[in-house]
């Protein structure tokens, strides 16, 4: 980390590239000049970056939630009904290979340039991986659990709620993790292309103002949020499940 920062600073100070293209991270190149850290802190203080982060996270959470609900539903249907597997299941594999931003032109035509279009591509970016993961999870519920539950009198929705869902939790968590990553990519692309507010919009602004310090600050924000989500939320979930179930260590 320190090495990378140092190398960056040195390159920035060699004047190999203009300062606006390669801004210094910590120490300004000329008195009162811009630094990434300065812009980052400024952005936090004036609320510019914080506000944008809030907007983006809000959209992300809504889109992601829609994707999770849809993914679980599709996954269940695929695992439950053979004909859904043969039709939708096959289709999902194809859909999954389409980068979600490809949907953007369609989304703009359908929903107009704005929040709805962004939500649409976030949701569609995350839904298919969630579907694939949850259907794998549901399909691979060990039959011994199903049989045990059935001989104890469980069936239908009770069986789904008390056995199929909890038995698929490990698959579902890894699905959430990948879906979250896909959702991030989708929202950044979406906001870059056009929407009021949000980190992607700020990135685009940074580009047009040729202020790479702002762009780099936003990259730092995205990195921090990504790390926090992965370590604090998903890894913790995974660990809790493995501890409770006695999987691994």
């Amino acid at each position, binding site marked *: 980390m320190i090495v990378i920062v140092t190398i960056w600073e040195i390159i920035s100070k060699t004047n190999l590239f203009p300062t606006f293209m390669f801004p210094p991270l910590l120490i300004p190149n000329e008195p009162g000049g811009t630094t990434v850290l300065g812009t980052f802190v400024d952005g936090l203080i004036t609320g510019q970056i914080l506000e944008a982060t809030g907007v983006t996270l809000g959209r992300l959470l809504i889109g992601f939630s829609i994707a999770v609900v849809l993914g679980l539903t599709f996954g269940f249907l695929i695992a439950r009904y053979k004909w859904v597997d043969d039709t939708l299941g096959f289709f999902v594999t194809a859909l999954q290979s389409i980068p979600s931003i490809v949907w953007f032109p369609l989304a703009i035509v359908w929903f107009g340039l704005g929040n709805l279009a962004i939500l649409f591509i976030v949701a569609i970016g995350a839904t298919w991986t969630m579907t694939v993961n949850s259907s794998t999870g549901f399909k691979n519920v060990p039959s011994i659990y199903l049989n045990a*539950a*059935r*001989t*104890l*009198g469980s069936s239908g929705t009770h069986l789904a709620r008390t056995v199929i869902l*909890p038995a698929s*939790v490990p698959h579902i968590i890894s699905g959430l993790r990948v879906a979250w990553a896909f959702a991030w990519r989708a929202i950044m692309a979406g906001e870059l292309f056009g929407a009021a507010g949000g980190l992607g919009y700020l990135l685009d602004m940074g580009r047009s103002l040729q202020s790479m310090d702002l762009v780099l600050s936003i990259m730092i924000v995205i990195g921090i949020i990504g790390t926090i989500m992965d370590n604090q939320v998903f890894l913790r979930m995974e660990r809790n499940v493995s501890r409770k*179930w006695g*999987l691994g260590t």
Partner: protein
Amino acid sequence: MKVNLEQVNKTFSKGKDDSLHVLNDIDLKIEAGEFVSLLGPSGCGKTTILNLIAGLDHPTSGEVIVNGEKVKKPGTDRVVVFQQGGLFPWMNVMDNVTYGLLLKKMSKKEAEEKAMEGLRMVHLGNFTQAFPHELSGGMKQRVAIARSLVMDPDVLLMDEPFAALDEQTRIILHQELQEIWEQTGKTIVFITHNIREALTLSERVLLMSTRPGEIKRSFTVQAARPRDPSDSVLVNLEKRVMGELEEEMEKVLKEEFGDDYRFKTSAVRDRNRDHMGDHI
């Protein structure tokens, strides 16, 4: 008559023209309160019979009747104890045992009391909050037995429940299962490939032949309880059962290794004598 199988056939289809005839004309009658073992080499269809009685599978032809009613689907009057226990790893011991009780619309308090009763019966009263992975193999099977017993089933179906356990634990659980059977008077159908286990536990041992599975012989075990494996009645029976089984084993081995294989003249056999009855 508690359990009655009439002319039951079961065929599994593997692809278009290929099919596997697993059970051939099985006629089986089990009286109320009887402890019956189904004994046979692997692949003889023991577990299939159990699944048919449990209602987890359906016969290709013939009828399975329990308590005078045709078996159509799983029911709480016929609970299964599986080889691996089948405990839910995401629930603690108490939740596992109360699972079926709560489904019977029993109040939580009542269910927990009943579960405690069942757990005490298998000497696990202090482990209600433990998760399955924290228990040893023997303890897991005890929980599985408790979970089945609290349901108060008419027929308790046991599918090689002790096969994965070490010898000491198995001997202890044999003892306890006999006690439980004497206390509760349940009808028990027990599946095993271990001759000594079958003879130690049951009133009647049904020896199955393989592919297609048929009931080859029925042995009545008339030995005093609690049973002692060195009891002359049991030793004698063990020899007779072993004799019958050898034919079946040769059949299986020939199928796997070709017609040249001769189990009866094979040198390994004499060395195996000491362990007769185990790991066939």
